[in-house]
């Protein structure tokens, strides 16, 4: 078995009486694409927010490469190598694509508390920002103002900003949300490229994309883990079909 890069142990998150995450213990392996499926309200985004430090868990532990990051704040989690993208496009709309990636790329500096030399002279930051834009197919748009681009391109930029920080583990929260079929094929191809070298934790509604990309799948229902296994195993699982896929067999096939 491959190295475990991220592990959750009995992770719980309560909002008042609501159990948004209920005793989730998962292992994520390095170099794999691990997809998390579940109907609306199953607690997928809450789980990502717990992993990325945006929310603090009510109980349980999160271990990244055997370091306890349960109480780490988002900036700390990002610094140690866990990048995330957001379900709702979360970019700097008034800035060019390059500037958007620049902020991510600047994390290669030990600190950005540097006051004298102009930032544009930093070659390593340039390299990282260009690399991220290139990977996401936005090189031609580097000077476009992000807010003026199409929705699909903004989603690509969302991923590029995260890649510019050169994370070890990528948390992708519905990267295909709201996209047309052409745009979604484009981003699926991008994710497949990323999957070759990176470790991905992917939340996605698009079944076709999930089944074609994922190595392992976890299905969640009501905040709890229903079943985890390979694509085949999930596809054929009776419990999963009852809970989630239900009568939508033709869409799966």
């Amino acid at each position, binding site marked *: 078995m491959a190295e475990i890069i991220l592990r959750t142990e009995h992770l719980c998150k309560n909002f008042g009486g609501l159990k948004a995450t209920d005793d989730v213990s998962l292992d994520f392996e390095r170099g794999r694409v691990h997809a998390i499926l579940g109907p609306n309200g199953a607690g997928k985004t809450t789980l990502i927010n717990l992993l*990325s430090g*945006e929310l603090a868990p009510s109980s349980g532990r999160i271990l990244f490469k055997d370091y306890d990051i349960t109480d780490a*704040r*988002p*900036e700390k989690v*990002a*610094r140690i190598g866990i990048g*995330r993208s*957001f379900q709702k496009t*979360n*970019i*700097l*709309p*008034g*800035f060019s694509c390059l*500037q958007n990636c*620049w*902020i*991510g790329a*600047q*994390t290669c*500096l030990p600190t*950005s*508390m*540097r*006051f*004298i*030399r*102009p*930032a*544009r002279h*930093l070659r390593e*930051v340039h390299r990282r920002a260009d690399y991220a834009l290139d990977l996401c197919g936005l090189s031609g748009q580097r000077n476009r103002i992000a807010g003026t681009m199409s929705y699909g391109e903004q989603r690509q930029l969302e991923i590029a*900003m*995260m890649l510019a*920080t050169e994370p070890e583990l990528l948390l992708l929260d519905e990267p295909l949300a709201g996209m047309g079929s052409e745009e979604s094929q484009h981003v699926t191809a991008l994710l497949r490229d990323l999957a070759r070298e990176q470790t991905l934790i992917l939340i996605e509604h698009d079944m076709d994309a999930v089944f074609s990309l994922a190595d392992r799948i976890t299905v969640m229902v009501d905040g709890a883990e229903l079943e985890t296994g390979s694509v085949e195993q999930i596809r054929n699982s009776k419990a999963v079909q009852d809970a989630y896929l239900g009568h939508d067999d033709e869409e799966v096939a």
Partner: protein
Amino acid sequence: MHTVTRPIIVFLCLCLVALLLFPLVGGPFYTGLVTKIMILSIFTISLDLLIGFTGLVSFGHAAFFGIGAYLLAILFKDVEHINYWWSLTLTLSLTGLAALVVGWFCIRTSGIYFIMLTLAFAQMFFYFFFESPHYGGDDGIFMFYKPEITLGSRQLVDLDNEHHFYYFVLAWLVGVYLFLSMILRAPFGHVLIAIKANEQRVRALGYSTSHYKLVSFVIAGTIAGLAGFLEAAHTSFITPAYMGWHESGMAIMMVILGGMGTLFGPVIGTFAVVLLQDFLPEFTEHWKLIMGAIIIGVVLFLPSGIAGLIFQISQRFVSRKQNSGREHG
């Protein structure tokens, strides 16, 4: 962020030349007035770092202006030969310390709470000095001597000479402008500007945004303290009114009127507001009505302030050069 294009640089250089030549034709009254405006400009430019670049609307920025002024007055009131270097260093570092303490509390909040908290701190300082007879109370403090700028035994600038003081303040204004431009171009500035646009995202990329906001707050507070120091040295008179909420509000208005997030905009805004305050009363006693109308007009029709208008004009210059063949309007 606006990029400073060549026409803008030319425009700023022309302004600088005009300011350099002004004392030769201005007469002592107006030289003194422009000195006062330039000191206020240093203050508003520092506020622009917070409002225009960090996204922190401080409604208590005048507190640091006042603290800078009071520190000079209290610490050196009875000193006959005030050493400029020593008094400046002491005043600025103590003002910076005050900004660090106030900022440490304030940056924990955002939006309307940040505004209220900065206002509350400023009012605390205001009433502290207002009700301290030992520090002059509501009458304020008179200073009898100005700082002496010497290097070795030679006097470099004579602050009792109005012309010398004028150029001294102008040099500080240019210095502060260049300093802030420098840190905004550096990695630090890139993070600040991004925080203003989308703080949550910047945090998710791996920055402790609160540290950056705090450092920005301290830098702005220290520069405001510098302006207060200069004002105290200029007028030799300090009153608690310097730190009232009215002053903070005026400064915000000057920044918005001039164009926030541009650095030079607030300077123009300061000139515009102070000169209007000076000239309008000569025409009518209802000048505040006209003043209000002008402000409403600028906010409605020039949403990015006077500097925004200048940027538009300069854009036209640039694009005309680029496609001179098919340029119409």
